């Protein structure tokens, strides 16, 4: 398309980066949700009366009707594996030898994405009941990582 030619000594690529450094607030609802994990070891949801849905994690608004959700309910710390994957890939795309077990755990009408542990892969199936394992209270920081992982409920 070009009449101009590329200088044979032209460098192929110019290297650079996007330096994105961030600080995120947990938000109005996140504050409630993560304080409950941190201080009480509880998982909170937010019921929307109009839609008949209990969102988990707790949120400030119903995405379906935009009502404000100012109530919270304790939904317990045991949920069902709704789906899961064995992740053989690191964050940077390199292959892992041993997979991480990641699941979506149903709680209320929502749930949490988290890792599973203390589990035999043979036992792993959709519908399995799992419970949250919390860090010791003194080490919790009000983060999703205050839950170390979920594990099968002892039968």
């Amino acid at each position, binding site marked *: *398309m070009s009449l101009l030619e590329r200088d044979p000594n032209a460098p192929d690529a110019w290297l650079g980066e996007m330096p994105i450094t961030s600080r995120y607030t947990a938000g109005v609802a*996140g504050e409630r949700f993560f304080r409950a994990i941190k201080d009480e070891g509880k998982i909170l949801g937010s019921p929307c009366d109009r839609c008949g849905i209990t*969102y*988990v994690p707790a949120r400030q608004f119903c995405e379906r009707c935009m009502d404000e959700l100012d109530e919270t309910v304790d939904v317990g710390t045991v949920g069902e594996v709704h*789906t899961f*994957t064995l*992740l053989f*890939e690191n964050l*940077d795309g390199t292959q892992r030898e041993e997979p991480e077990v990641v699941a979506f755990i149903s709680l209320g009408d929502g749930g949490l*994405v988290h890792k599973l542990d203390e589990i035999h892969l043979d036992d792993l199936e959709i519908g399995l009941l799992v419970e949250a394992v919390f860090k010791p209270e003194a080490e919790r920081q009000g983060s999703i990582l205050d839950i170390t992982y979920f594990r099968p409920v002892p039968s």
Partner: protein
Amino acid sequence: MSERVAIIGVGWAGYRPVTPEVSYKELTYEAAVKAYADAGIDPRRDVDSFVTVAEDFIEGTSIFDEYVPDQLGAVLKPVHTICGDGLHGLATAHMLIRTGQAHLVVVEGHSKASNILTLPEVTAYAQDPILNRPLGLNTDFIAGMEMNRYMYETGATPEECAAVVVKNRRNAMRNPLAPYGADLTVDEVLSGPPLAWPLGRHEVAKHADGAIVMVLASEERARSLSDQPVWILGVGWCNGAPSLESREWGDVPYIRKAAVMAYRQAGISQPHLAIDVIEVDDTYAYKELQHLEAINYCRAGEAGMLTEEGFTAPDGELPVNVSGGSLGMGNLLDASGLARALEIVLQLRGEAGLRQLKEAKVGLAQSWRGAPTTSGAVAIMGS
């Protein structure tokens, strides 16, 4: 107000795994020149408005919008960016023309995926920063969990998903634009390394560089400029729940709604009877099946079986991704939807070469913006 809108020119450059000899601007320019020549127009004189689809972190530039006009012939013209897929761009051009304020509108999308050295980490920055990102997971985990739930709910099998890879990469061998043509077997696909079980590494579209430009026109302008306008019969787009915590894992209701919107405009009630050729998003192999079911090509759980039976093959009853799809042509990031639409345009114009289908009068293109999004679009075109 112009009710009807047509695509009257298309141009492309790429698609290749790498394109080191040209900058993104030069790649786009090549596609633009071809599209304008195809439409028989001069962008400086004739075009009323320009639409680009792009995302900052993909380009490595904040406010990437800045760098759009020069290589499109769009300087000092109405230009804007849609942070969406190429089909969102097409829908935007469609709307602009229907207002009656614009008669010729250009849509552009490009990928320089090869220039992003840390794409998985950039993609992970699309995860919720508070709820999900602290887990430090490669975003493909979402695809693995979706695929697992999709198979659980519909009874689809790993073999059926792998059959999509076999078909699409085989189709790509008959498409000179496609860099990833291959003659594989289902076993070869399934015995590849695991990625996010049940998803295997061979079931994920590899990235490619490329650029696509399309020229859209009002009915009056289309009839005066083009011998073979491709009419936009309907276009729909929709978002689902962005949160992983409130979405459906086995289904894609947003694609379903986008399709309903497009069918309603096109007056189509029985897609399998009305449509001759389909291009759907196949970023991950299972997505082709899930998307076919969502656009009501068949009932939930049937798409895999139909694939295995050859129903979706080029010589099948209703061919899907004759182009090779993203598995065969490469994942062009947000230009992927334009690649799907381009194949429909070429098929409807009878210009698809070796892979030309016999009876191609109405075609459908569908896109998805990739994990972790719940954003997709559908466009239906007719000759």
